[in-house]
């Protein structure tokens, strides 16, 4: 089992550790998932996301290489840009979703922990014969997420930068204790926030400084459970649930992350063909009308007809309702309601627009 650089700190903070994609990770701290979730919505929460896969790409062929492996175009991107993108197979199904961060000396790809080996293998295979050097830096770095309406204030004060001037999906290198901290204005919670990549050995110390500075205002350390319920309210996809090797990005409403103007990416032909045909499946958001907890894998019905499967579901702490997403026949998007089979009973759910939660402007 892999441990992040913050393992000892998690234990000291009374985290409950669980196995996640080969890592021992905090699923929750003493406050509990719902309190942690609400702290992020109201003030802020700190997450250790060091389990995320991080690959450094360097070499004269990198820009060209990224045009082939990413669905978004990075052709006009510069250092300081962060781009959410997908990697797809030639049949258009999703290998992974990731954020590519432009640096002065190359690119950093931040991808899902569960896909680390698969991604690395795919990238290396595609890079064969080109001047592209791929280094897996996951275990040499720490990654923290600082999320919540108070994030600008906390990051500015602790890192000594004007964090508010960094725009969404932009990156900048700050210096902390004379070490570089790659700071991007990104996150996975639906709130304002930042993600920081720094040398592994400094992660725990920075986390502790952020927590000490934020605690008096209500900041909490947050685990994977809160991270999951936050991203569900924001309708952000989770690999293996809303996107996978069996779901194409158009079905998952991720057409915005596919740039057909990029003529060269792997999967383009298949996705263009799918784009020109009426969709057969779509990702729907729903909230339970009858009381019950929808969970991934539960069947969705229209009358007696099976029309889909829940991809994610749980209680929404912000809305105080049971919510979920489901991959359904495309017709479901026009329905007012369908039923979800929960522990042997078909319970009514209302089809609702995505997302469940967006932060106040």
């Amino acid at each position: 089992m892999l441990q992040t650089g913050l393992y000892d700190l998690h234990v000291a903070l009374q985290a409950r550790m669980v196995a996640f994609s080969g890592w021992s990770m905090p699923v929750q701290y003493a406050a509990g998932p719902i309190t942690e979730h609400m702290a992020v919505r109201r003030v802020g929460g700190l997450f250790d996301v060091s389990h995320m896969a991080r690959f450094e790409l360097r070499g004269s062929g990198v820009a060209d290489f990224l045009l082939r492996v990413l669905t978004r175009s990075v052709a006009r991107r510069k250092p300081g840009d962060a781009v959410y993108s997908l990697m797809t197979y030639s049949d258009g199904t999703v290998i992974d979703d990731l954020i590519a961060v432009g640096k002065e000396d190359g690119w950093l790809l931040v991808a899902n922990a569960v896909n680390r080996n698969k991604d690395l293998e795919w990238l290396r295979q595609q890079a064969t014969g080109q001047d592209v050097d791929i280094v897996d830096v996951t275990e040499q770095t720490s990654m923290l997420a600082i999320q919540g309406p108070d994030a600008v204030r906390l990051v500015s004060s602790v890192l000594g930068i004007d964090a508010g001037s960094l725009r969404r999906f932009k990156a900048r290198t700050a210096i902390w204790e004379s070490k570089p901290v790659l700071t991007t204005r990104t996150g996975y919670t639906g709130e304002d926030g930042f993600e920081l990549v720094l040398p592994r050995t400094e992660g725990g110390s920075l986390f502790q400084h952020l927590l000490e500075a934020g605690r008096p205002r209500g900041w909490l350390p947050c685990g994977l459970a809160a991270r999951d319920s936050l991203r569900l309210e924001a309708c952000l996809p989770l690999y293996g649930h809303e996107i996978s090797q069996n779901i194409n990005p158009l079905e998952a409403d991720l057409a915005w992350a596919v740039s057909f103007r990029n003529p060269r990416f792997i999967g383009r032909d298949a996705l263009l063909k799918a784009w020109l045909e009426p969709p057969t499946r779509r990702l729907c958001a729903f909230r339970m009308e009858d009381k019950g907890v929808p969970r991934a894998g539960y069947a969705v019905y229209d009358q007696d007809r099976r029309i889909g499967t829940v991809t994610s579901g749980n209680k929404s702490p912000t809305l105080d309702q049971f919510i979920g997403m489901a991959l359904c026949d495309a017709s479901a998007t026009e329905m007012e309601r369908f039923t979800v089979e929960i522990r042997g009973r078909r319970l009514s759910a209302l089809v609702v627009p995505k997302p469940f939660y967006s932060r106040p402007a």
Partner: protein
Amino acid sequence: MTGFAVPSDLLFASTHEWCDQQDDVVTVGITDYAQDQLSDVVFVELPEVGEDFETGQTMATVESVKAAADIYAPMAGRVTEVNGTLLDNPEEINSDPYGSWFLRLEVVPGTANPDLLDAAGYRNLTEG
């Protein structure tokens, strides 16, 4: 893990229900250890008053942010009362597990389940 409350006047099932038997009425809930393992409770499903259960049958369901868990009948009996406040305030199970009874069962007078543990036995089970 240590430090979970285990009241000495109750009996416990190895499936983490607590039982408070007063003559032929048994009050049932889940233990402090169980609520901690479940994490934040978000939903409870209770049986109807008048339903009969055999020992070990599923009587109720409790769901947390993490998972669903069944509540088993610690003894055979008929449901005489359910705690409806839990339906709207399931989080009370986390804050007050021994005050948050799920239901009351009427059992045949003189019934006992020899498999139920006393406080020392239950503490052994959860700390062992």
